[in-house]
């Protein structure tokens, strides 16, 4: 993964992307046990790049081509990993990106979303694998309940959380 993270660092240094943070299953690995995933989700902001009124991902693909990286569908293959760059799409994404924490992987400094933001985003997306990941976070005791409740309330996800609890937590062994 080192080569992948170095390429992303280079993208930032070259001004192709502004702030970015690891989310999804790879982000979850920082807090819970590793779970199989095929790709890396990188949430990105283009806000600090001047003259950007609309989100345009073509500079990302152009950068990849010019640096010898393959683009495959919505992915860019960096260091053998398909990487999906997800522009922040709402207030929750923006907050998750702003509050991402800095850490080191294989000697490279990266930013990773907090456990609570990862769970809130997984709840919003709501696929079966997202629900499974949320259950792993709960079982691991990796969440601060007060912080999570606050995030869910501010981003209109309390109802979804209640439904999730009813469906998955009420009759656990």
């Amino acid at each position, binding site marked *: 993964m080192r080569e992948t993270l170095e390429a992303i660092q280079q993208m930032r240094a070259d001004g192709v992307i502004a702030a970015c943070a690891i989310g999804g299953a790879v982000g979850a690995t920082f807090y*819970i*046990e*590793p779970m*199989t*995933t*095929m790709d890396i989700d990188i949430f990105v902001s283009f806000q600090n790049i001047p003259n950007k009124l609309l989100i345009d991902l073509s500079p990302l693909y152009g950068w990849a081509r010019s640096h010898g990286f393959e683009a495959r569908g919505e992915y860019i293959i960096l260091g053998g*990993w398909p990487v999906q760059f997800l522009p922040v799409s709402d207030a929750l994404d923006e907050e998750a990106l702003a509050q991402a924490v800095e850490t080191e*992987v294989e000697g490279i400094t990266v930013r990773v979303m907090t456990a609570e933001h990862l769970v809130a985003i997984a709840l919003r997306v709501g696929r079966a694998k997202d629900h499974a990941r949320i259950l792993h976070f709960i*079982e*691991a005791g990796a969440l601060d309940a007060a912080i999570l409740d606050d995030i869910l309330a501010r981003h209109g996800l309390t109802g979804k959380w209640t439904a999730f609890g009813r469906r998955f937590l009420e009759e656990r062994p």
Partner: protein
Amino acid sequence: MNQWMRAILESKRRERARLRLLPLDEKIAILERMRDRALAIAGSSLAKTRR
């Protein structure tokens, strides 16, 4: 749930807790191996005939 099943689940929980506490670089290495294996399984003849 019988005692035997409880013991299996408890053992799985313990293993997951152990994995959770590994250093980050080790967890990333596991992630890479899991991905390689998943790709190998997806490329197997059985997986292809089921698609």
